[in-house]
């Protein structure tokens, strides 16, 4: 299929969406939106959460039907009635929310629905052989027989991409593909995208990582509140211009805080070993009022460390001291009672009970506080209203189910849950993943405000810009251990990267 790398008529776009309007009950998600892409180009689609990017792409992917407007492929009007039809037109979708089966291996996932058969039986050898080149191309040095459940989220995302590639799509829609990838994996992905573009594939790249867009996009199309808000040609693409189109206002880059008083040694973690890295132990101090950024490659053991500190995962050994008091490990309740909280990486599975309302989620961790004699008699309403107001949570109602809110607002609910409980040491694990620029800034402000109040803050992030912008100090983890600390004056992408790829000394024999 790659022979058709030149469109028959270079002037005609491979895909054009004209005047697309989409109405849902009570809301107009898209209003007269235009979009086009030619073969052999990367077009970035940007916009805040709720701007309509997902809806537009879902129409292209066959999940929704437009209420008005038309779709043209190579100049011919088409109807895309289902996901299968979209595939048939050569449209491949790599979703932000991973849709793979982790009880199967890589080859099985890549060939799901298109299994190779030999006399009615699964032809595993062919599938394995066919999968290998795609994995190599993406830099995944893993056998196609590996079960998906053994891979990290970042690696699973690579498999999603391999799957789309293997379906020989002419148009690849990549929805926040790098949100779970490490720096190295991101570089590889961007270069693969450039290669594919050179081979004539059209790539629609949806991302909030403006730096990556600057690196690889040929054009940028922006949406705001369901309408086109502007376009940028190659030489016009820059951070400021993109933010302007997305938000309609200038958003200042985060400024490092001058910081208030620090209480050194407020949090002391000693010799903590996680079950993911039993041979490595981690020790660190966080001052009260300090923001410690924790950087590193995916799989370095940062989330595992956070979970071991908080007690949701087993800590094989280690001690936690807060303000001089020893906190029992492996007991979430002990942490919660002492003001040690974790904002988890997976907000939909661990941060919230998504089917429950905003109110029920906000009060879940502190419920006894709103009860009289164990009964809930309406004490929660006031507290919920306060959180909604203070954190600017955009929800029609306190009873709205959390699943109906955008990612940014869902994250604010998780924050509200814990912030209402007087934190003393709070850990944020990937706090702004998949969240729009506006909400990101609000969350950074919250983090800084917490630190200003004397709270010890740990922020785990794979977003280099983010880590460098908001931290007072950075700890870089690699292979389960801390490979180094960076003070503000030593901050830099290269410095972080060097520490992140460093192999720590081999674990001492126990």
């Amino acid at each position: 299929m790659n022979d058709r790398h030149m469109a028959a008529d270079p002037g005609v776009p491979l895909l054009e969406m004209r005047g697309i309007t989409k109405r849902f009950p009570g809301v107009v998600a898209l209003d007269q939106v235009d979009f086009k892409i030619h073969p052999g180009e990367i077009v970035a689609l940007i916009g805040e959460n709720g701007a309509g990017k997902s809806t537009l792409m879902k129409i292209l992917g066959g999940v929704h039907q437009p209420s008005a407007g038309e779709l043209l492929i190579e100049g011919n009007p088409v109807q895309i009635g289902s996901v299968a039809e979209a595939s048939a037109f050569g449209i491949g979708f790599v979703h932000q929310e991973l849709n793979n089966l982790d009880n199967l291996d890589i080859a099985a996932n890549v060939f799901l629905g298109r299994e190779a058969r030999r006399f009615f039986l699964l032809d595993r050898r062919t599938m394995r052989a066919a999968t290998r080149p795609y994995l190599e191309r993406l830099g995944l040095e893993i056998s196609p027989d590996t079960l998906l459940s053994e891979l990290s989220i970042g690696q699973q995302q690579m498999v999603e991409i391999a799957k789309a590639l293997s379906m020989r799509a002419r148009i690849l829609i990549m929805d926040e593909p790098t949100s779970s990838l490490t720096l190295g994996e991101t570089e590889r992905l961007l270069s693969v995208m450039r290669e594919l573009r050179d081979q004539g594939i059209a790539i629609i790249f949806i991302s909030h990582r403006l730096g990556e867009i600057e690196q690889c996009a040929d054009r940028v199309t922006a949406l705001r509140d369901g309408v086109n808000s502007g376009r940028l040609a190659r030489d016009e693409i820059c951070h400021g211009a993109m933010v302007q189109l997305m938000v309609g206002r200038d958003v200042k880059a985060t400024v490092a805080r001058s910081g208030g008083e620090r209480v050194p040694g407020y949090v002391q973690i000693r010799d903590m070993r996680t079950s993911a890295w039993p041979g490595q132990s981690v020790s660190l101090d966080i001052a009260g009022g300090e923001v410690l950024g924790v950087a590193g490659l995916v799989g370095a053991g940062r989330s595992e460390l956070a979970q071991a500190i908080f007690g949701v995962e087993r800590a094989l050994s280690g001690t936690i001291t807060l303000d001089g008091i020893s906190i029992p490990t492996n007991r979430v309740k002990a942490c919660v009672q002492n003001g040690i909280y974790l904002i988890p990486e997976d907000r939909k599975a661990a941060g919230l009970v998504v089917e429950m309302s905003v109110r029920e989620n906000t009060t879940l961790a502190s419920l006894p506080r709103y009860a009289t004699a164990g009964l809930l008699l309406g004490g929660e309403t006031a507290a919920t209203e306060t959180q909604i107001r203070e954190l600017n949570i955009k929800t029609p109602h306190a009873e709205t189910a959390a699943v109906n809110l955008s990612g940014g607002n869902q994250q604010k609910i998780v924050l509200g849950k814990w912030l209402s409980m007087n934190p003393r040491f709070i850990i944020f694990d990937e706090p702004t993943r998949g969240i729009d620029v506006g909400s990101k800034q609000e969350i950074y402000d919250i983090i800084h405000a917490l630190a200003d109040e004397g709270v010890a803050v740990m922020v785990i992030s794979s977003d280099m810009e983010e880590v460098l912008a908001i931290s007072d100090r950075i700890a870089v983890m690699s292979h389960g251990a801390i490979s180094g600390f960076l003070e503000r004056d030593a901050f830099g992408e290269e410095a972080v990267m060097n520490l992140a790829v460093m192999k720590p000394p081999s674990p001492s024999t126990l």
Partner: protein
Amino acid sequence: MLAKISRFTGVGRRELGMLVLFLILCVIATLGTFEAGIEESLFKFDRTVTEMKDGKPVQYIDTMGSKFLQPSNLQNQLKMIGMFGIFSIGVGLVIIAAGIDLSLGSLMALFGVVFFLTLSSWGESMGLPLPVRAFVAVLAVLVLGVVFGVFHAVSIAYIGMPAFIVTLCGLLGYRGLARVISDETTVSTKGLEYPTLDYLCQGQFAGIPLPFIYLMVTALIAWVVLHHSVYGRYIFAVGRSEMATKYSGISSAKIIGSTYVICALLTAVSAILFCFYTGSVSASVHGNFYELYGIAAAVLGGCSLRGGEGSIVGIVIGTAIIILIQNTVTLLGGKSAWEAAIVGGVIFIGVFIDLVLPKLRAAK
């Protein structure tokens, strides 16, 4: 406003639908079981019948009544709803916490055997006077309920064994144990009279059977706890997402475990009531399939087997529907074999409609 009432009572569209179904079934039961010669019924009318007798027309008054609405039948059904409803609430709580308990019926066989043996042979060999035996028997069964409940709680919630497996083993094992203890015989009070116990289990108050009153009390307490207490909120949360609940600092093991203890305890209560209803217990058949009826009542009443959904009102209505269907089939003279088939069919249709209707509405 409606939403507020709905949240307060825990009653939603699902429960209202089940209530409507229940009322329709009542009407069917009433009209379908109309017969001649029924003197006592809440719905009857007299009609004059003319017949030929010895060549001369003779008239007499015949009473047509609904067999269903006979006071004796209604009281019996209320009693059944009471006895079945109590343990259905128990298993309903387990289901809302995303668990399952398949061992209820077998537990009932075991409890029944222990109960009657304590009242008869064991009590005799311990030299206890009858009133003491009664007290000990009831206490013993309730304590056993807690013991088995804790056993389930520890294996399932703390050790992490799948609920299906643990309670399936219970299903097989407890009944086997019951048969061993009773030596494969049918146990009863062996002719001894226990008037107080008999009254407490089978008696009436203001015409309403006591088991039904016990059910109402249990349901009221359960309703307050499930829909208005911190503990109840935790049950819903852990049923929806155990992980998110853990990450909020709540001991999910404690919550899930406690539902198994409550379930076994309520089963113990029901077991005692059933003992005096049937008069004797044959370990191999007593309580057969009751766990499925309990689960069916819960599911019919709105408890999703995925967890995190359900209401006490729904469970009670679900129980009532199942008992009602059984009663109707019996009154119509159908073979008891039909009962199971019809109950199965009604539950299927009920859940099917509940699932499909909203999808149809959304697609329009």
